[in-house]
């Protein structure tokens, strides 16, 4: 039974760590945005405004949990939970150190793809159950966007899988001992980055919730902690895509001098900051531009990458 205790402790500590870092990320993002846009950002509550997170959380908890009377109630309540659970479940395969992926499955990457494809339901059903035209439009866009970008995401990862000879993330990191995959798989890395931004619907690809045209997209009708769950899932998604970038293309825990977990956290942190910088710097494209870019530019590139990788390996 000691085994079960260890596993439960690891799961709970990972869960706590993730939720705390996602919450802190909301503060970090606003501070960084402030820095890049020549203003302060939240700096009043606590040292450097870091307690703003706590204040926001208390505010969200204190809000009225409102379910509109025209909503499809069970589905409306289920939707944010689906989004959060699928994102959290994906973290079980992330290899933070050689000994700490919660599960090192031999279908690790496929598990990630499966979970991202299930996460669509949360958004789709949230939009449908709200019974509101903005929410519906946001959900339709997000479904189309996620389905299309999932295709290139899968294809862009296959180059890495071919080179490492395994779907398991631990094996993929070990295969990068001599050379990180960001060099031979440079194209694959770029494609995965684009697809990752689109999957976590962050700016510039945040069309499902484009504020200037859809109020808040699929989560227009959500308030209180249900909105909080969507929000948390979005930031967890940023951390997830960043840590996958680290594990797949930038050598995961590999690095000199410093301990492995610190390398992993540092590399992931760089990508998280990159996500915020992109939000600060880039405008949002039009929806048809986004779809055209995906199908006419990224898909052929992903196929080309796969063909060239296969050819070189053979």
């Amino acid at each position, binding site marked *: 039974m000691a085994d079960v205790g260890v596993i439960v402790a690891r799961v709970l500590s990972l869960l706590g760590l993730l939720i705390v870092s996602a919450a802190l990320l909301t503060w970090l993002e606003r501070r960084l945005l402030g820095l890049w846009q020549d203003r302060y950002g939240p700096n009043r509550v606590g040292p450097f405004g870091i307690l703003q997170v706590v204040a926001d959380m208390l505010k969200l908890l204190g809000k009225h949990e409102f379910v509109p009377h025209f909503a*499809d109630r*069970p*589905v409306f309540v289920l939707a944010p939970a689906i989004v959060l659970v699928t994102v959290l479940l994906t973290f079980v395969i992330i290899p933070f150190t050689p000994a700490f992926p919660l599960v090192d*499955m*031999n*279908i690790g990457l*496929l*598990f990630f*793809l*499966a979970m*991202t*494809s*299930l996460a*669509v*339901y949360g958004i*789709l*059903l949230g*939009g*449908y159950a709200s019974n509101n035209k903005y929410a*519906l439009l946001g*959900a*339709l866009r997000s*479904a*189309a966007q996620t*389905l299309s970008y*999932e295709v290139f995401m*899968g294809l862009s990862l296959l180059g890495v899988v071919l080179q490492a000879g395994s*779907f398991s993330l631990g094996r993929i990191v070990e295969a990068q001992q001599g050379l990180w995959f960001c060099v031979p798989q440079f194209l694959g890395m770029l494609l995965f980055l684009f697809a990752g931004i689109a999957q976590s619907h962050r700016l510039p690809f945040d069309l499902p919730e484009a504020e200037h045209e859809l109020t808040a997209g699929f989560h227009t009708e959500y308030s209180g902690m249900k909105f909080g769950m969507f929000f948390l899932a979005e930031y967890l998604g940023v951390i997830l895509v960043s840590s996958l970038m680290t594990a797949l293309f930038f050598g995961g825990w590999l690095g000199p001098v410093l301990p492995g977990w610190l390398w992993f956290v540092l590399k992931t942190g760089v990508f998280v900051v990159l996500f915020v910088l992109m939000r600060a710097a880039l405008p949002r494209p039009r929806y048809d531009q986004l779809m055209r870019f995906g199908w006419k530019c990224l898909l052929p590139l992903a196929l080309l990458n796969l063909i060239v990788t296969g050819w070189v390996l053979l």
Partner: protein
Amino acid sequence: MPFLFYLCALIALLAAWQVIRGVNAMHALLYLIVVLLAIALMFFMLGAPFAAALEVIIYAGAIMVLMVFVIMMLNQGDSAVGQERAWRAGRIWRGPALLCAVLLAQLGYLLLPAVVSADAAAVDAVAVGRALYGPYLLLVELASMLLLAALVGAWHLTRVLKHRPGEEV
């Protein structure tokens, strides 16, 4: 492990029953997704993790999303639920029930200890790939041609007609 397997099977059966019985199309679809997930778990426990992952990615993650998408666009209200309920009554059950009874009888026969062969082995990604690109290569190519035809057809249906000069709009 057998307990978990039968639990999954039970969930799949109950959810499937709800799919057939439900009158709200969206809720029925959600139950269908539960069926697919339960089946994926059963594949996993039978030692076919690759098939399980594909079941989730392709069926639950892509095909069912499209179905949900379409039903969402149709925006069926209470009238659709009433219509579904009206269709439910009467003789409409007889044909499907008869066919299902035949299938059930077959299943029962196959489960007899004398019939079943117990040489089931784990099928991994490599084995699936070898089979597809070895003995079944022709079928894979035929399927890809079929998909190509569907792709061209979809492009043809959604193309934008160019406005020719000197023509009324």
